[in-house]
């Protein structure tokens, strides 16, 4: 079975741990608890008939990605960069963050995820899509679980193809 290391990153409070918990354990908590450092767990998913073990690293949110210890990115095959649709500050640095991450994780798959879909309207999402400098790959809600499985399916396909 193929094993792939995937990093969940982005600013603080965007819902990285909630996406982690929703993906790994199918659970959600309303309580916000800051992540210090890193948490790692794995889940095996089936992608187009092949099994992929996703080793998911949930790392502490930083306003700027160059503050994350570079050792965390070692051997990563995929990056999930999470933004919060309700907070413009979380996508203010998206371009420089993605450029930086692409330098650190060469040849990896990067997915930009717009989270907290349950807290905004369709019109608001369309508005943010107009103003954001890099388009997102998928809109999710860690709370309802909407598109979380789809995110990892898409990522898994990319990881297997790469």
């Amino acid at each position: 079975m193929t094993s792939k290391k995937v990093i969940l990153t982005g600013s603080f409070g965007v819902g990285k741990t909630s996406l982690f918990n929703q993906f790994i354990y199918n659970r959600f908590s309303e309580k916000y608890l800051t992540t210090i450092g890193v948490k790692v767990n794995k889940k095996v998913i089936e992608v187009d008939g092949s099994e992929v073990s996703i080793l998911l690293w949930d790392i502490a949110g930083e306003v700027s990605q160059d503050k994350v210890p570079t050792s965390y990115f070692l051997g990563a095959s995929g990056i999930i960069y999470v933004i919060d649709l309700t907070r413009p500050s979380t996508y203010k640095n998206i371009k420089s963050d993605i450029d930086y991450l692409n330098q650190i994780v060469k040849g990896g798959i990067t997915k930009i995820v717009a989270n907290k879909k349950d807290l905004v309207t369709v019109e608001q999402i369309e508005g943010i899509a107009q103003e954001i400098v890099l388009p997102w790959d998928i809109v999710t809600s860690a709370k309802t679980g909407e598109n979380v499985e789809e995110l990892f399916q898409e990522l898994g396909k990319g990881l297997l193809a790469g």
Partner: protein
Amino acid sequence: MTTTTTDQFIHHPSFNQRILLEESGCIVHSCDSIFSTVDLKEQPVTALFPIVESLYLNLEQIQLGALPLRFPGVESISERLPGIYDFSFVRLQLKGQSYILWSIYDYTELYIELRKYQQQKNELDMYCEHLEQRFKDIQTPEDVLNDR
């Protein structure tokens, strides 16, 4: 390799555990200061610790004499390590045999304290962002009344 030789490398205070791994990821020796590895001998630790599993290919590539690979603030999901630790990995050569030395530093209390302050800071920052957003939307006195 004798036990005496490995003991020189792994005798440390109780907040620090040192584990000697062979290339396969199996435990050769451990001081067991933080958790017992008695029942883990001769099985790869990668099966128990996803973080080590996800790093193992990189650990194999650590060169002798290279600086240790450090991973601060690891919140372990293993029941054996129920806290927050700093991990470091370095290659060692003992009697011609090559090993990885995995050091675990228990900073749980410190990180829990740090998390308390980080949590307060993050919550305050998010509240400030929320207020800024609301004030941006206020253009007229009516908006203030409607915003209540």
